[in-house]
């Protein structure tokens, strides 16, 4: 894009990264591992169960994080409204399952499976179109503007979508019944694994595989990658850049729609302001994994899900849920300071 000049590392910025930093970062990670190890030894079954909870939540984060990373990769824009698209997707899923198809607690498998399978594409399409519309209204007119401008419209759009949710469902939590079965899949000692957690993974994994196939193998995916690398060059090669960007937003929104459905079914309640919160966590995941990097976003999301679950669930010297929010943002700040390119990302000028 227009920022070619900015891609060059700046003179003299490198000296702000003294060598103690990697060592400090390494020590931090080491301390974390020791803490986890001790907890594992002390309470192995609980550790396993908490890990499974973290993976489940992380899988939902991953779907949202991918949306951030796709959009950031192509436009270098933090789409603040993405979390709220996800929230509206969850509300849509709540409406479809509860009001349209009137599913109840502990529904028979023959009834909920086809309905959920039907709701999934509807929700994905709804959020995809919504996200592409957001791009069309709020970001496309600002292509040539300073980078601040689309960032500000993104925040504005985020608040507008939140208020759409507020007007739609009111200020209280929208409860969803326990549609997914909660029986145990397996027990290891005291650790249980329930069906609703497994179903989250069963839906997430094919969606992820489909996305990777789309980006790696198809023509459209090639266009996306080309645009992400250099939109001017891509335009010269005959790629319709605007359409590719719209398509990217559509895909990102569809992922958020899938996440919204899973969230509604697994977490079983949603409120108008929860999208922003979850969006921030998902963005942190994307940064942790390396923004613009698809496997990185998944890895980052799983790690953040685990960090949250360990912090809240482990007994031995865990800071506890008072601090979850701070810990997530501290991870974000630390990763940006120590390793701005993320765990799997390539070095970008943002980190200098």
């Amino acid at each position, binding site marked *: 894009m227009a920022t070619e000049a900015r891609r060059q590392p700046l003179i003299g910025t490198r000296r702000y990264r003294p060598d103690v930093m990697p060592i400090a970062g390494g020590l931090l990670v080491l301390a974390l591992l020791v803490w986890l190890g001790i907890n594992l030894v002390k*309470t192995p079954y*609980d550790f396993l*169960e*908490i890990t499974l*909870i*973290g993976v489940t*939540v992380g899988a939902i984060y991953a779907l949202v994080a991918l949306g951030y990373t796709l959009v950031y990769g192509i436009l270098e824009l933090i789409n603040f409204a993405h979390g709220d698209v996800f929230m509206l997707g969850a509300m849509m899923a709540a409406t479809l399952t509860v009001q349209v198809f009137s599913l109840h*607690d502990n529904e028979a498998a023959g009834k909920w499976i086809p309905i959920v399978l039907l709701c999934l594409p509807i929700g994905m399409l709804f959020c995809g179109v919504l996200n592409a519309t957001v791009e069309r209204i709020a970001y496309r007119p600002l292509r040539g503007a300073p980078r601040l401008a689309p960032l500000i419209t993104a925040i504005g759009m985020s608040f507008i979508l939140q208020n759409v949710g507020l007007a739609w469902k009111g*200020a*209280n*939590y929208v*409860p*969803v*019944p*326990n549609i997914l079965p*909660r029986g145990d899949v397996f027990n290891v000692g005291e650790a249980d694994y329930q069906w609703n957690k497994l179903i989250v993974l069963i839906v997430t994994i094919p969606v992820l595989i489909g996305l990777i196939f789309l980006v790696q193998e198809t023509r459209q995916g090639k266009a996306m990658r080309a645009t992400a690398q250099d939109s001017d060059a891509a335009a010269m090669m005959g790629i319709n850049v605007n359409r590719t960007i719209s398509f990217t937003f559509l895909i990102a929104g569809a992922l958020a729609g899938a996440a919204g459905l899973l*969230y509604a079914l*697994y*977490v*079983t*309640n949603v409120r108008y302001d*929860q999208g922003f*919160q*979850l969006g921030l966590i998902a963005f942190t995941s994307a940064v942790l994994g390396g923004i613009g990097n698809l496997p990185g976003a998944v890895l980052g999301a799983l790690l953040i899900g685990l960090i*949250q*679950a*360990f912090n*809240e*669930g*482990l*007994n031995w010297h865990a800071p*506890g*849920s*008072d601090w*979850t*929010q701070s810990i997530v943002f501290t991870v974000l700040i630390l990763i940006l300071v120590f390793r701005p390119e993320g765990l799997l990302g390539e070095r970008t000028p943002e980190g200098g």
Partner: protein
Amino acid sequence: MRKRPILGLLIVAAAVLALVATGCGGKKSSKGNTNTGGGGGGNVTALPASSCQSIYQGSSSPDYLIASDLPLQGSSRTQTVEMTKAIKFVLKQHNFKAGKYNVGYQSCDDSTAQAGKWDSGKCSANAHNYANNKKVIGVIGTFNSGCAEIVIPILNRAPDGPVGMVSPANTYVGLTHGGPGTAAGEPDKYYPNGKRNYIRIVAADDYQGASNAMLAKQLGYKSVFIFNDKEAYGLGVATDFRNAAKKLGLKIAGFTAWDPKASSYEALANKVKQSGADVVYLGGLECENGSKLIKDLRGTLGKDFPLIAPDGFSSFTDTWKNSGGAALGMYISVAGQPNEKLGPAGKKFVKDFGGEIGAEPNPYSAYGAQAMEVMLNAIENSDGTRAKVADNLLHTKVKDGILGTFSINENGDTTSNPVTQYKLLKGGKTTPFKTIIPPASLVKVA
């Protein structure tokens, strides 16, 4: 070059607006008195319309004003709006008179749209308005203890003597007396001139926490895990519960916060499982995602796992509905007697007021009405000065009132402290399980 037209247009627009005088229906008060919010006149100046509604008054113009300070926007709106109706109901019953004085009433709002709940800036601005308006002789409020922490010291030092306050809803202990759960300097820091001007007709959290702890003990539980929502109310009542439970010999298996913004509490529920607790206490509000916490706790620990909660969960139907029925059988306490045990005055109020609003009154409405009764009584027996009214409030004795018979002690606390423990039944119905009056020795350590 580009900026002049806009600046010019702005100024012209301002001038245009300036030329259009009071458009809104021509509701216009006399010159120099514009700020009365439309209802003023006589010898009182109304509180500003920016946060207060117009004066509710009888046929003769009032000598004094009573203001109520409640959050009228956001999550508590339904309760607080009904409280203002109950206050008006009582004032009308008294024919807008307290003894020989004519009294008007203004309902003021201490919340902002931005926060969706009480706002510290608004509380302070309101308090200054009450203090500086000589005709405000008493204040009913506040609803939130945090707001009371701001309003009390400002009214305590009001230029024309301390303004008496009657709170129908504040439960934070430190407002009236010290104790293990309060901060240093409380409650004296709220009364800088050394004289008390605040009473509450609702039992403080230490009573509720102590009675909840007694319930846990009486039900035979040994080890309790305590949650709080990290808000002033939730943390306060959870701390009081912890102290009382310790005293009663219960084991504290854990004391932690739940983050209302979190999406899942399964990991927390797992922590409870590890801790070996046989009962969980939920110190906080249902609307802070409490129902989701109930769902996850019962999902992990078993659907009959015993839960005890204070009146933050007392919107029974919401608790039932939002938890998808997972809250079945949990114990929820509410200060005061259950409706069927109310005295004749209370029953009559529930019937008459319910008839006027066309619905079963919210429990808080009775407290609002009782607060107004207490206030009117204090004004009736005064010489018309603020100091005397405040003094009278501290010597309140109520016989067969809406909330029964009680008096106010020198701290400003009510002596009537029954706490009713309800059991949640299907569909959000409840049955009074037990009414507990915690002994003073236990309350003292809570």
